[in-house]
């Protein structure tokens, strides 16, 4: 035995972690079942909405949404991109991936934006939340995937959770950043006219922070997409599963087309979220 080992007692952190997960699964299985059902249902609903109608109708609808949010160029790209996915015969997988990304983005925003507001308002929250966000973004995904599998089993919900942990931090950070950039003079003016804290938040701070929050949304979506392959390792379907299958079968062609499909979805989501904020600016002119 070397001297440091004699001097410094070993901390059984790993067995504590084991015990903690055991305790969680033993005592909160009811709660976890509810969470599992809700998330599973949510992803299922989104997937059903995207995949059950005829693909061509969905292509038209999504292209129209892209047009409305981001203009005709993005819409055109969206249309051709989605048609390419159909011709690659990956439509159903792509729609499941899209459903997973949308679900995890939505959940990230539901938690992330209010958390960003709290971070801005309360110094104590800021002190606690910052290291947690750092951990969420840097901890290797497999570390929390294993307990997540133990708790929720293999499937979409575990994938959703992993994606959420990885993708949520930008929503908090950019909401916080956007709020701190609201000019003090504007806030003071609102205060001088007798605005309440809520009125200040909804009439001044959030509207002025919106461009920054939207770039947070964009980040969340991109990070969610980057998790699809890892998510497929814990049982999520979709394009990630296709990539995983191509790796195990050494099928270069399948891997390539699945990868291309991920890229197409990424570009569509990125352009739609970015241009939607820019277009808003032009409209309010």
């Amino acid at each position, binding site marked *: 035995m070397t001297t440091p080992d004699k001097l410094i007692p070993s901390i059984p952190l790993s067995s504590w972690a084991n015990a903690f997960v055991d305790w969680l699964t033993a005592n909160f299985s009811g709660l976890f079942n509810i969470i599992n059902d809700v998330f599973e249902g949510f992803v299922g609903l989104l997937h059903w909405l995207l995949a059950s109608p005829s693909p061509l109708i969905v292509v038209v609808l999504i292209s129209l949404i892209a047009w409305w949010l981001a203009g005709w160029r993005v819409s055109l790209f969206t249309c051709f991109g989605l048609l390419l996915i159909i011709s690659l015969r990956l439509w159903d997988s792509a729609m499941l991936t899209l459903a997973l990304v949308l679900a995890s983005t939505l959940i990230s925003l539901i938690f992330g934006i209010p958390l960003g507001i709290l971070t801005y308002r309360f110094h104590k929250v800021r002190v606690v939340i910052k290291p947690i966000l750092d951990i969420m973004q840097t901890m290797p995904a497999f570390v929390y995937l294993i307990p997540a599998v133990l708790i929720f089993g293999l499937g979409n919900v575990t994938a959703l959770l992993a994606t959420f942990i990885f993708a949520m931090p930008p929503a908090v950070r950019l909401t916080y950043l956007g709020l701190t950039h609201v*000019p003090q*003079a*504007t*806030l*003071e*003016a*609102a*205060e*001088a*006219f*007798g*605005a*309440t804290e809520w*009125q200040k938040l909804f*009439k*001044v701070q959030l*509207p*002025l922070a*919106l461009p920054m929050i939207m770039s947070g949304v964009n980040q969340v979506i991109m990070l969610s997409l980057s998790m699809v392959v890892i998510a497929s390792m814990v049982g999520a379907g979709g394009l990630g599963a296709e990539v995983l299958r191509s790796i195990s079968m050494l099928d270069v062609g399948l891997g390539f087309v699945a990868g291309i499909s991920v890229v197409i979805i990424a570009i569509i989501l990125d352009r739609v979220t970015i241009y939607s904020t820019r277009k808003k600016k032009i409209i*309010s*002119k």
Partner: protein
Amino acid sequence: MATQTATSIIRVQNVSKVFGSKKKQALAMRRSGRSKAETEEKIKTTVAVMDAEFDVYKGETFVLIGLSGSGKSTLLRCLNGLIKPSEGSVLLENENIGRLDRRRLQQIRRNKIGMVFQNVGLLPNRNVLDNIMFGLEVKGVEKSVREKKAKDALEMVRLNGQAYKRVDELSGGMKQRVGLARALASDQEILLMDEPFSALDPLIRREMQKLFLDIQGEVQKTVIFVTHDLDEALMLGHRAAVMKDGEIVQFGTSEDILGDPANDYVEQLVQGVDYSKIRTAKSAMKPLKAIAYQNESPQVVLRRMKANHLPAIFVMKRDGTLSGLIQLPQVTNLAEKRRQDLSAITPNPCHRVGMETPLREILPLYSDQPVPVAVVDKDHRLKGEITPVSLINSLTKEIQDYERKKSDLTEAVQE
């Protein structure tokens, strides 16, 4: 109504505001006569306002004047509770602003005290009309009513037709009009104005001051106006308090302050507005009646000086630049000696100033001898002269302007 003018609507009693720790100690230091800078250096605590005391009467425009850092904006913010005084009280119709809970304070800001800011603080995501409606929206006024009131306010500040413009398309002056309209739309009886026109360029500022006077004549609000510009105070205000380092150093009508400055600081402020900065050599300069050249004969120059009643004359070198000044006895002497030209004597050096030299710097030049001062351009070519008489004329014109302004003001007060 005579009784109304005497009603105090805001009463400021012993208000002090200290930023930082050791508040009591800092105030004690200041009260024992240490300067603001000394206190800041010693205990790192800023006494922004100290023992301020005044009343504001209904319907008047009360001005707080002071240079930047004098605490005038901080004091103003104590009046609507944006800043809570460390000591003392601000009474708004017998309610102590500093002690109110948040809800009551919000009510007062919505219904009693409006505010206009130097940097306006408009919402860039809204158009002009929606910005003006903000105060009414916060109050929960019905949409149709607030649109009507906002449009009325828009008309008052002469921005008709700009209702649906984006805020960042507006110029500085127009933005400030929107800020003013926002306060007018909410229609509180008291209006706090924090250097609203200071950031604007002089012409626009003038225009805004006139607009403000017009509107004030119409709406008759009680206004507390903060400015660093005594000219502005004089034009807009009925009574004023001069602040220095957080203290009110003089108090009275604007005329009192200008006519009888309480101390050097006020004097400086007063002078800072009048001739010293604004009036330059150009304004007091007069064209030369006659000049002489070095190669001219003394007899000719002598006749010229006598014809123009000149006790001294500027002499130019051959290249046209100024050489100096020659007195009448010197020229007479040369003429008697029948010299060919003036080169036999070296001209006396004279004071030279540029066109943009402030008049205040020229005044002391006459202390040694009452001879004309030469105004030259950058090539040392003579452009004109300033005699003691022309200087005094230029300054009295300034005073006449002021007298006229003063009588306008008294008329306005009497009305």
